[in-house]
């Protein structure tokens, strides 16, 4: 069960009448020479860390060591928002919660990266609650997300320093969108469409963190990227396709990342980091 592109992954699932997660699980068993139980157990443990981070973040009101983030997930969680208590509010709250835990030196799952760690758990937990999925189903969807991310890590990059934020929050959102589709019962082609739609619409996103810290704009961007994933999943489930196939979107991401100047790739030398306020914050933190 080898795949090196998203097309191969989706075709394997379709031809074998399996889910994408099943292909990813079988491939991991072969690659790691571990048993199915061991592989599932490890993902179960990974999922537990994700749930704990979301819970901790929702209840936490303290600021991060730099003072730049903290308390927003708690604020969102307790706000009776104008959208009503819907799934969009949940995903943004959960994603910000994990990111705040990350910023304050709490335990998270760096999937695909620490800076984008809020997106996948937020989307799968919120969708899971909405459709009453049990933990085992969400854990399977985490394999789907991982398999999609694996293709990107081999073909392109998951590092903001190499590809900008499109490679971190962009890919995180795309992984979450694809996994949400499978969790909601969508077909393998829809998984690929959701991935492509989400990533396409975050292409070009730069990595310009204030003072070089994983906080501004990263924490709130996790919230935005999670709700973005829901939009992509919803479109794909409604059979809205992506004109550009997923693998070609990943190629476009690589090309855009290569064209992106170094000042916008995690060096804190351009964009938001180089604004008047951004520079002032950096100067104050340096003292």
């Amino acid at each position, binding site marked *: 069960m080898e795949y090196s592109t998203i097309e191969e992954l989706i075709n394997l699932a379709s031809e074998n009448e399996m889910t994408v997660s099943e292909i990813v699980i079988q491939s991991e068993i072969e690659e790691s020479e571990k048993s199915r139980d061991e592989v599932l157990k490890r993902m179960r443990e*990974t999922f537990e860390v994700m749930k704990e981070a979301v819970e901790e973040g929702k209840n936490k009101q303290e600021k991060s060591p*730099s003072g730049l983030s903290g308390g927003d997930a708690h604020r969102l969680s307790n706000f009776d928002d104008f959208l009503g208590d819907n799934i969009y509010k949940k995903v943004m709250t959960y994603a910000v919660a994990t990111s705040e835990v*990350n910023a304050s*030196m709490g335990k*998270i799952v760096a999937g695909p990266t*620490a800076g984008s760690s809020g997106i996948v758990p937020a989307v799968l937990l919120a969708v899971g609650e909405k459709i009453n999925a049990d933990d085992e189903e969400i854990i399977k969807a985490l394999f789907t997300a991982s398999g999609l991310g694996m293709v990107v890590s081999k073909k392109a990059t998951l590092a903001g320093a190499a590809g900008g934020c499109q490679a971190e929050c962009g890919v995180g959102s795309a992984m979450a969108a694809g996994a949400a589709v499978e969790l909601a019962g969508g077909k393998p082609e829809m998984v690929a469409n959701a991935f492509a739609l989400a990533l396409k619409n975050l292409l070009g996103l730069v990595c310009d963190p204030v*003072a*070089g810290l994983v906080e501004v704009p990263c924490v709130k961007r996790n919230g935005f990227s999670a709700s973005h994933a829901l939009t992509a999943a919803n479109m794909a489930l409604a059979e809205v396709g992506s004109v550009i196939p997923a693998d070609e979107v990943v190629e476009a991401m690589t090309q855009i990342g290569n064209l992106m100047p170094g000042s916008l790739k995690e060096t804190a030398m351009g964009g938001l980091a180089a604004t008047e306020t951004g520079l002032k914050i950096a100067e104050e933190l*340096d003292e």
Partner: protein
Amino acid sequence: MSSIFDVMGPVMVGPSSSHTAGAVKLGRIARFIFSDTIKKAEINFHGSFASTYKGHGTDKAVIAGILGFKPDDERIKNSLEIAKEKGIEVNFSEVQLRDVHPNTVKIVLSNEEESVSMVGSSIGGSDIKVIEIDNYEVNISGKLPTLWIIHKDRPGMVGVITSVLGSYNLNIAHMQDFRKKKGTIASSIIELDHAVDEYILNHLRNIDGLSLVRYIPPVVN
């Protein structure tokens, strides 16, 4: 060989894989290289580590590693207090090192009797590379069980070491030998496929011509 848990993971304490998790690993390697009771830790940050260490908690991360914590240990954020309780004096400063990666730290650990210095870099994700120990050039990734051996630079010495390892069925994945001056002493870095126990280490320590044997267990996420 790659695992999906490299993408959906590692489980770590934030905020940054390179500036936090990688820094924990570097501190941890320094601890094993020193291997004695630590009384003092001098941490010198270079480049991006120097400019962002407070916000990324790189200071706490390195000290956590020196205390023996792993990158997913939730005590990392309290490591400075824990070091203080253990009577370890900790100093941070900024340095400019030559021709090194932007995320580099020089760690000097000491007690009344001895001291060791180590230079290492966080090279991407939470991958690290130790490049210098006590002015010997080295190359340690920390992913495999690793031995650092100082031995006399004379014919057959490396053969003795490898045959002892072979007698315990320990397969060598990589081996590098560095020397400061021909015919004096040399430093070997040996990365193995399997872990080494205390019995084997004592066997190595008893070999004539070997002045130092240190074992660095891998950090597995």
